[in-house]
């Protein structure tokens, strides 16, 4: 295994890491969470998806990761249909809700995850050890996830998403409930993954940090993308000093549009 920091490789053949066209999700109760959403994330990008609670971020992520059945639309991951094995293999997901196997120990959580992705046992053990070292979980290797602190569970969730060496890493609020120090460490680590060539799709409610990290940002509200650009471009477009300003203005405008449509 080569050290990705020393030899970053970008695919560079133009195929986007993620391409979403006309994605719509209407849940069983009849509620439409996302409506006709288009989104393209270039290979190697650090992409932020920002929006209020209930905007449809997790719904979109669920559809990309084959956890939510799309009502309509097409989703491709590096040019593969999102439900193809080639696509699934390339995606690493740390969900918003912590979901760790309570019957396995910390090291087993990592090893079996890699196993589901087809990794061999020795390889998986090696990788798990590596990531437990990185995420300071080695001392807890033989402990069940239920006996971990909240921050440790977040780290394990993050490490699990990385086990199979994904090319597209999806982080759905990876720093929810995490202390300041760990939060900055997680961001720093994510930044390095990105430098090493991993495409990152991130949702977070920490706007400043998103602004500092993301090359591109999409604002989503009511299941629609209402703005999309680099942080700089968005600031210029809205004449705002920072992304928080952009966010508030964009949301206020969207709310106004919604009222006008409703009236």
């Amino acid at each position, binding site marked *: *295994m*080569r*050290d*990705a*920091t020393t030899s970053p490789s970008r*695919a560079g053949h133009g195929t986007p890491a993620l391409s979403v066209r006309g994605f719509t999700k209407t*849940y*069983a109760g009849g509620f439409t969470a996302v409506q006709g959403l288009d989104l393209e994330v270039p*290979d190697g990008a650090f992409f932020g998806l920002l929006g209020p609670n209930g905007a449809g971020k997790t719904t979109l992520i*669920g559809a990309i*990761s*084959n*956890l*939510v*059945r799309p009502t309509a639309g097409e989703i491709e991951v590096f*040019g*593969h249909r999102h439900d193809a*094995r*080639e696509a*699934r*293999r*390339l*995606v690493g*997901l740390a*969900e918003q809700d912590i*979901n*760790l*196997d*309570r*019957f*396995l120990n910390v090291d087993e959580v990592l090893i*079996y*995850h890699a*196993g*589901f*992705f*087809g*990794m*061999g*046992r020795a*390889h998986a053990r090696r*990788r798990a050890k*590596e990531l437990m*070292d*990185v*995420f*300071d979980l080695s001392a807890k290797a033989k402990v069940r996830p239920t006996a971990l602190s909240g921050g440790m569970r977040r*780290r394990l969730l993050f490490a*699990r998403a990385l086990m199979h*060496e*994904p*090319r597209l890493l999806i982080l759905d609020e990876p720093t929810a409930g995490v202390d300041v120090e*760990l939060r900055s*460490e997680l961001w720093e*680590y994510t930044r*390095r*993954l990105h*430098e*090493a060539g*991993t495409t990152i799709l991130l949702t977070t409610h920490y706007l400043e940090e998103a602004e500092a990290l993301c090359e591109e940002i999409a604002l989503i509200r009511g299941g629609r993308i209402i703005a999309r650009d680099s942080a700089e471009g968005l600031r210029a477009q809205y004449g705002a000093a920072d992304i928080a300003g952009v966010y508030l203005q964009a949301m206020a405008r969207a709310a106004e549009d919604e009222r006008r449509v409703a009236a």
Partner: protein
Amino acid sequence: MSVSSVTGALPDPNAPFTEERRGLIWLCEREVVRFLKLWVQTLIAPVMSSLLFIVVFGVALGDRIADVDGVPYKQFIVPGLVVQAILTAAYSNNSSTVFQARSDRFINDVLSSPLRWWEVNIGLAIGGVVRGLMTGILLLILAVAMTGIGVERPFVLLIATALVLVAFAQLGVIAGIYAKSWDFMAFVTSLVILPLSFLGGIFYSVDRLPAAWELVSHFNPIFYLVQAFRIGFVGQGDVSVWLALAVLVALAAGLSAWCAWLFKTGHRLKP
């Protein structure tokens, strides 16, 4: 955290998917590891409780109960108790593993992996199959030692065991997928499986029942499982071996189809 040590290869996005070790094998292993970690609850406890019936009804009371169709009573009840233990083990193992995985949502780890839908189905069902088999073998050894029962038609017993394992492993997965609470699964066990087992002729021959009840018994699927096992052990039952096995085949096929549909469509597993 040591943030400086980013390691791992970046995969080629155009490479075909390959496995160093099959994901399906890993999932099967996970399911077996799960119940083995809890072996006292999952293996010893059910074997002991079935054994209790053999001790009380067979060995202690059996001498006072007349032979049934020439079979000593303590032996007569063994096939039904063995099949009941097997089907309960397969069902309860799978209903709880699937329900736990759904309610904690770690099933998402499997559903988002490159495992194919039928691999997920087989993987999640296999724990119940292995646990049912181990329960059956343990109980068989103990029952042979305690009652001296033999196996008259081993081939019938083998086929019946395989079919029961498939049917109830799948039923457990289905229940785990539909369940909204733990109580639902306990409800199925205590108000469906247990009564149907006891009314399925474990402790008596339905020939002795009044005609109406005998007729009703024939609508109970578990009756045919008990019959198939009894034919396997003592060589005879209340129905023909072909009818008993045919019902088992239908049951296994029907439940497998239902289960396959759930996994293929993602119905109830994915919103």
